[in-house]
């Protein structure tokens, strides 16, 4: 009885948790923007936002693929290595023009995705193990291809991807926006998306319902790696150089964080595409805020860790509320 009367005045703990589960990442973004509005000079300049969005693009694109994989109750640690591989092949083919270069880079990603997906779907290797192996071997292969050298990329077409804008909006941001839209439609409006989510929700039930579980898993890993390759091309274009030794280092962690913070549970069965976008933007704003207040980068990483913990705690609450 007392509990009932209390809950009339104060929203119950689970209701509060529920709001945070649904809108937590957006609330956090708004709070952070408000903070910056008051305390950070020039944060609300158009140039600053353009810079922020350009910087978030690689993580965002990788996170889109990661969200699909996590939706199937998987994980892909090899995305950073795929970015490095994409970067490594660019100097070899850049002479053929932009489109062939792009196709080859994405093709390399797709092949790595096939490898990951085959191990997971057909051999039954745990995703974390399969992609960890590919993560290590992939970067090694990238360094071999590049002869462990940094090569500058001078093709104006490729560089334009990272530096030029149309109507004030950078190409890279446009590409990312289109990809967000495509993945959102894929997840919410297609048979494939629904089947993917069902597999993450209950793989056994999906199998018994006659879903092509293995094929879908394979495609999901191919998509994830292909998106990582796109991120690799954009990253290379921005740097103006192919740097397979460092490009995409630890990006898998940022991507996973963006996905989880955005409300997609690691236990699969849900994919929040807009949440993932918001998660990536939130991470970017946090590090930008800290940088603008001259907080060392190390603190930014610690902040990221705290956010992961909070997000996972809220997700856990969700499982319990159910």
């Amino acid at each position, binding site marked *: 009885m007392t509990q009932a009367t209390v809950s009339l005045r104060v929203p119950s703990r689970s209701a509060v948790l529920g709001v945070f589960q649904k809108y937590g990442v957006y609330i956090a973004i708004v709070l952070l923007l408000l903070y910056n509005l008051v305390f950070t000079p020039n944060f609300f300049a158009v140039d600053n936002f353009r810079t922020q969005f350009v910087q978030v693009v690689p993580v965002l694109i990788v996170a889109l693929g990661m969200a699909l994989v996590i939706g199937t109750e998987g994980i892909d640690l090899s995305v950073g290595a795929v970015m490095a591989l994409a970067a490594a092949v660019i100097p070899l083919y850049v002479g053929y023009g932009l489109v062939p270069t792009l196709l080859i880079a994405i093709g390399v990603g797709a092949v790595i995705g096939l490898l990951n997906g085959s191990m997971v779907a057909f051999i039954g290797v745990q995703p974390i193990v399969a992609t960890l192996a590919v993560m290590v071997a992939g970067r090694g292969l990238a360094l071999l291809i590049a002869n462990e050298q940094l090569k500058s990329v001078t093709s104006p077409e490729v560089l334009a991807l990272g530096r030029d804008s149309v109507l004030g909006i950078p190409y890279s941001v446009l590409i990312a926006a289109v990809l967000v839209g495509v993945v959102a439609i894929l997840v919410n*409006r*297609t*048979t*494939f998306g*629904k*089947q993917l*989510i*069902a597999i993450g*929700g*209950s793989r*056994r*039930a*999906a*199998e*018994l*319902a*006659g*879903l*092509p579980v293995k094929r879908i898993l394979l495609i999901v890993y191919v998509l994830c790696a292909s998106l990582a390759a796109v991120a690799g091309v954009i990253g290379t274009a921005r740097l103006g150089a192919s740097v397979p030794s460092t490009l995409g280092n630890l990006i898998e962690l940022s991507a996973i964080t963006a996905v989880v913070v955005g409300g997609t549970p690691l236990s699969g*069965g*849900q994919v929040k595409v807009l949440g993932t976008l918001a998660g990536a933007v939130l991470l970017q704003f946090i590090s930008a805020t800290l940088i603008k207040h001259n907080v060392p980068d190390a603190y930014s990483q610690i902040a990221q860790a705290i956010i992961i913990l909070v997000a996972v705690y809220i997700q856990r609450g969700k499982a319990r509320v*159910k």
Partner: protein
Amino acid sequence: MTDARIPGLEPPVLEARGVTKRFAGVTALSGVDLVLRAGESMALMGENGAGKSTLIKVLTGVHQPEEGELLLDGRPATFARPLDAQKAGVSTIYQEVNLVPLMSVAQNIYLGREPRGQVGLIDFRRMYADARALLAEYGIQVDVRRPLRTLALGVQQMVALARAVSINANVVIMDEPTSSLEAREVETLFRVIGLLRERGIAIIYVSHRMDEIYRVCDTVTVLRDGRVVHVGSLSELPRVELVSMMLGRSVEKVERGGVTAFRAANESDAPPVLVATDLSRKHQIDGISLSIRPGEVVGLGGLLGSGRSETLKGLSGVMQLDRGGVTIDGKSVRSGSVPAAIRAGIVMLPEDRKAEGIVPNLSVRDNIVLAALPKLSRGGFTSRRKQDAVVDVFIKRLHIKVSSPDQLVSELSGGNQQKVMIARWLAMTPKVLLLDEPTRGIDVGAKAEVQALIDELAHEGLAIVLVSSEVEEVVEGSARVIVLRDGSIETELRGDQVDESALLAALAGSAS
């Protein structure tokens, strides 16, 4: 094992008195008494949920009883942990051998009590010699230095048994020990059991295989709903009576009609839609052939472990078959493939609705359309309009109680979840519907609705196979009943033969 020993004269080695055990308010065991005497071999019988495994876990220290006590050699004993029970001489042999597969046979036998040399190192030579001698007592000749996993399963089990007995066991509990053994290995096991009994070791034997029970055991304790319903000598107990006690159906007064919501006879004389020939899979089912006509409900009878569910899994492509195949309307169906079976029109409602049926995080709508999704799409894009047409129809027709189709399926009651599962398959317009325990765990009202629905679907021409552990459901719902025992077809009951006493007799496998 026609042993002349009279168990009544031996002193009790293990006793349970008034043992009661509850889990979250549900009573699993209620005032259970059990007396096991030296050299006795007792069959512990009961169907699903009777409390067998709980009782075994209490006897072996995995669970502690809330009321009642255990007596070991007449003295009260408390097993706080499994190790306490083991030290006291109560050992368990599970169906899956729980030893260390990569270690040698000898190491497994002496794990934790290896013979030591003077400086405290393991004396391997003595250990190997001891192990060899020990196994030789049971007539087992193996290289004791080989890793355990390289041996046949039956031999592994014998090693487990030898280990248990060499740790000074007075009581050995065997839980389905033969479920994965070859016929020859079973014989070895039985010989060893005989040897153990001659040494005065008492055995509790749990198995679903009637023939084994009657060969190996001399007494029987029957559990039902957590209570002991019968204790006595096994050889004087006809099989039919044993089975009816397990199922709680009395042989003499068999009620007729009115128990379930089934009305129609569910018979048909159309040509068969599904023909299955010689379905076989090692240790599961052996040579099962059957045919089903449109509009017919065929019951699949059998005790737990008889191969009922496995037969459905073989038919629906869920289980890979070693031999045999299925045809639909004369066309053969690729075996071992669920999508192929579904395309051919065979669909199965799985027994474990929660783990294998519903996708809990999805809505009722998404669960209903899960299998039919490609059909309800255009060019790979889902069509809300097409989905709604199907979803609304089935929610109405099956009376699924939902606040909206977008409600999470996990929020529904068991009965409504089951209806969602049936809707999922009806949306595929199947030819054959396989139902594995369709009314288990759902409330009485929903149960009647599901039963009435089965009638209705059969009337509309669907061929239905019904597996149920409730005798009256099988008898009243089916036009004929195929009775399985130990993975093979025991007999088939047709027409007037389909009644409870005939089914009980067939389940028991006695020549009645």
